[in-house]
């Protein structure tokens, strides 16, 4: 097998940024507010992946990257909780979670 195909850091990073970009696409595209947050989770997840893989390639004996990923997961969880609470409250008021309809700050 050629050296080029063996996944080095470059390949890993490409995958991680691909996932991130897809997450950004979803963030900018989804109409449902929950869908938007799901895309955000995707992006966050790819960021955590980034930490872990870079940790492995550059500092194999250490665990700092894993700890970072841990924190990312935790914070993502907190963020998702609060976001969902807000959407639930918003749905109660407006009967809709359509992002396009939430434009009171226009002009």
């Amino acid at each position, binding site marked *: 097998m050629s050296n080029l195909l*063996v996944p080095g850091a470059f390949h890993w990073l490409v995958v991680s940024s691909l*996932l991130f970009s897809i997450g950004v696409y979803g963030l900018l595209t989804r109409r*449902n507010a929950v869908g938007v947050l*799901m895309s955000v989770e995707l992006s966050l*997840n790819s960021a955590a992946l980034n930490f872990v893989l870079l940790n492995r390639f550059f500092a194999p004996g250490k665990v700092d990257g894993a700890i970072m990923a841990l924190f990312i*997961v*935790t914070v993502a969880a*907190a963020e998702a*909780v609060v976001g969902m609470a807000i959407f639930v409250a918003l749905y109660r008021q407006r009967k809709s979670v359509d992002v396009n309809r939430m434009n009171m700050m226009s002009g």
Partner: protein
Amino acid sequence: MLVGNETLYTILFYALSLAAVLFALLMVCTKKILRSAAYLMAVLSVTAGYYMLLGQEFMAGVQILVYVGGIVVLFIFAVMLTRSVELDEDKPTLGRRLLALLVSVLLFAFSVVMFSWSELPVLLPGLPGSSSGSAVAEIGRRLLDTGPTGYVIPFEVVSLLLLAALIGSIAVAKYDSSSGGGAR
């Protein structure tokens, strides 16, 4: 390290990558929200696989437990709670889709170009003296380390954050019959 063999490592990597990208694309493109949540679950699981590949078994476990088992479930709950009868469709306009595509492609291209210019390690270095348990112990030790390279403060702060998130979300989403259903 889970894989002692370079070939196996390569095959696993590409397989997992394919699955991840596929599921991610499906996730952002599907019109049905619940399917989107399911695809998200798939992607997160694949990421757990990645962590295994990279030798961080503990992280893989955490990923499954927290992300898949907690957050995605939360999303599904939220979808259920905020579903209006017809609103299953999620079709953004063509203009928006093109614009978003452009932006994300730009971002991706930029990142890739930047990576290709950098000097990145090619080989996956072996773990010196690794066994599956030491990583966990190390993580635990570092989390409670009060020294200069310790993470005890972020650890405590994050726990406070979780507490705040808990309380806050209850406060926001609480059903108050006196004011028509909203909080306060």
